[in-house]
């Protein structure tokens, strides 16, 4: 290490006073996320006034369970979107992982041998999740190594994964997921559909995923690299960031999240159907975008994404709860998504202009008439 890198830190003078400025910048960030929070607050207030049931603890837990599935998907989607990509295959991965779990629980008719294997539940879970990660890995390789546009690569995978799910089940639904004591493969449904401390398992998973991925994004080198590649891939590359590796990994993470949702959904029904998860990718993308992430990459947070998922979930369930007509539900949901993102864009261009003005004012201009 040369002396450029290891200066005498102990003796360095105290940093200049900068606390107030830092707080102001953070306030700006809070405002961006605050927009989604405001939307959520409005939704809660409206529905609470329309239905006395809305704010009952039982109902809040129920709606949060519905939110959790989309939130976990959205966390994975956020990773991809931060990278500037998109993952359209998550819905199919939900179906595929659920089907794989169902298939293994019903007994794996092993080829060649005349054996039917009954793997224990933990093997089923790990196998299904690993398969989801593998689907993501293929996406990642297509995007990073073969330079296939993310939209196209994952659109193709949407069909491939769904097709494989159909091939495995031959179009049928697996319902015998309880396992048998004698085979030692019980517990899949009872575990994943349980509610420790009164909180449903999907909600626990959402919390764990949110904390874990927050840590990943904010505290690890990978997280910083992800923001950097999404923000400016060329600059990141020249700074020594392994951009291709980062790009591949985000799809693996998205597949991992999708597979987890597949398991939770399968246990919830409880049935493994190859159609499970159809169009789930759209809600996940909407949650990420409502949460303030930029589809061009580099901007977005776990917190915002969670709020986005709550906005969608609490809105959809609220509309059902107060009995809004089926067709209006769709119109309202779409309008909220558009409104949230439009406000976001307005606010950003406003902030950018304000920042620019501030910089321009603070820079001294040699040769120009000085403002008295």
């Amino acid at each position, binding site marked *: 290490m040369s002396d450029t890198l290891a200066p005498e830190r102990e003796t360095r003078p105290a940093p200049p006073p900068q606390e107030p400025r830092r707080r102001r910048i953070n306030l700006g960030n809070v405002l961006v996320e605050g927009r989604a929070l405001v939307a959520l607050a409005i939704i809660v207030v409206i529905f609470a006034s329309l239905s006395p049931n809305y704010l009952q603890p039982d109902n809040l837990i129920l709606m949060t369970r519905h939110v959790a599935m989309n939130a976990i998907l959205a966390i994975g989607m956020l990773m991809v979107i931060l990278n500037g990509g998109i993952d359209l295959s998550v819905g199919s991965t939900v179906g595929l992982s659920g089907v794989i779990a169902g298939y293994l629980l019903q007994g*794996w008719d*092993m080829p060649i041998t005349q054996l039917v294997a009954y793997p224990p539940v933990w093997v089923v879970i790990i196998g299904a999740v690993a398969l989801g990660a593998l689907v993501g890995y293929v996406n990642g390789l297509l995007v990073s190594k073969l330079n296939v546009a993310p939209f196209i690569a994952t659109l193709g995978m949407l069909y491939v994964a769904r097709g494989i799910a159909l091939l495995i*089940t*031959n179009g*049928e*639904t697996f319902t015998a997921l309880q396992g048998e004591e004698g085979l*030692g493969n019980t517990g899949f449904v009872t575990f994943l559909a349980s509610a420790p401390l009164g909180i449903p398992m999907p909600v626990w998973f959402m919390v764990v995923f949110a904390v874990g991925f927050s840590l990943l994004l904010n505290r690890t080198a990978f997280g910083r690299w992800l923001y950097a590649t999404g923000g400016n891939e060329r600059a990141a590359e020249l700074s020594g960031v392994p951009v291709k590796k980062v790009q591949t990994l985000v799809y693996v993470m998205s597949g991992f999240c999708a597979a987890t949702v597949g398991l939770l959904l399968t246990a919830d029904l409880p049935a493994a*159907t190859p159609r499970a998860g159809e169009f789930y990718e759209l809600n996940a993308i909407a949650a990420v975008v409502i949460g303030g992430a930029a589809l061009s990459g580099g901007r977005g947070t776990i917190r915002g994404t969670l709020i986005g998922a709550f906005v969608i979930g609490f809105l959809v369930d609220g509309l*059902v709860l107060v009995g809004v007509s089926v067709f209006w539900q769709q119109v309202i949901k779409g309008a909220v998504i558009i409104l949230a993102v439009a406000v976001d864009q307005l606010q950003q261009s406003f902030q950018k202009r304000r920042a620019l003005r501030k910089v321009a004012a603070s820079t001294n201009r040699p040769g120009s008439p000085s403002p008295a």
Partner: protein
Amino acid sequence: MFRTLTKATVALVGSIALAACGSSDADTSAGASGDEGGGGGGTIAVITVDPSNPYWKAEVDTAVAEAEKLGYETTVDAHNNDADRQNQFIDGAISKQVDAIILDPAGADESVGAVQKATDAGIPVFLVNAEISEQGIAKSQIVSNNAQGATIGAEAWVEAVGGEGKYVELFGNPTDNNAQVRSDGYAEVLAQYPDLELVQQETANWDRAEGKAKMEIMLRAHPDIVGVVSGNDEMALGAIQALKDAGKLDQVTVLGFDGNPDAAAAVEAGEMVATVLQPIVDGTTLAVQQADAFLTDGETGASTEKQAIDCILITEDNVGQLDNFVMGG
């Protein structure tokens, strides 16, 4: 480590990643079988909706089995109710010069052109499960009577509920014509019982997971319902799971539609009061037989082009005879 079960139970230790191929299930391929039927020797294109749904899977399996029994080769495509894809498959069938097409059409109006095109190309088309809005183009249109099915289902459900109380309805995909036909069929019967109140109608897009989620929320708004009528079995099964979780299944009577295997199991277990079986196997068999007759004799043998086959009510009493959409003896 996991256990295995076969004729001789063997314990396997190790990874799951054994060779994952080489199974010898050749029965799924649509090859030529023995030439035992009448005409035979040609190819029949089977174009269905969505084989991931057991209902249409039964349709395809029946068509393929019947055609092969009669000595035809088959090709199978699925258009997922997308008229454009249906068009492509029709074009493909024309260019392959198949001898006949068994088609489950994607939309009554949208499919007229496709059927016309095949007919113009000299390929007879036999419609199953759904009809098109014009007559005289297809050789036969064999549909199940959804309205009649909804009526018998609703009647059985009312009998179980007792003609009094609040109920909710799960509606199919709103863009699907059958969703409306079935809903109207239910309404027609239930309107005669003024003490039955439809408190909410929600769509769950034929989907089990959505059916469950919608039911969970509706139970919050209307905890005192006595019944659920559903446009299909999948949504009904989702609703049943939601009711089970809420501990309310014994106070709520659920009606399904389609008679799929999971629903049959639910009827048998007393969780679903009834479901309505569309005679898809009978209808499809009939369509293939009429295609064979037409190819051999130039006549379908049916008196009219449009043939409606009545649906069958599946209850506890007869569910034992139901096996994968087929009523056995």
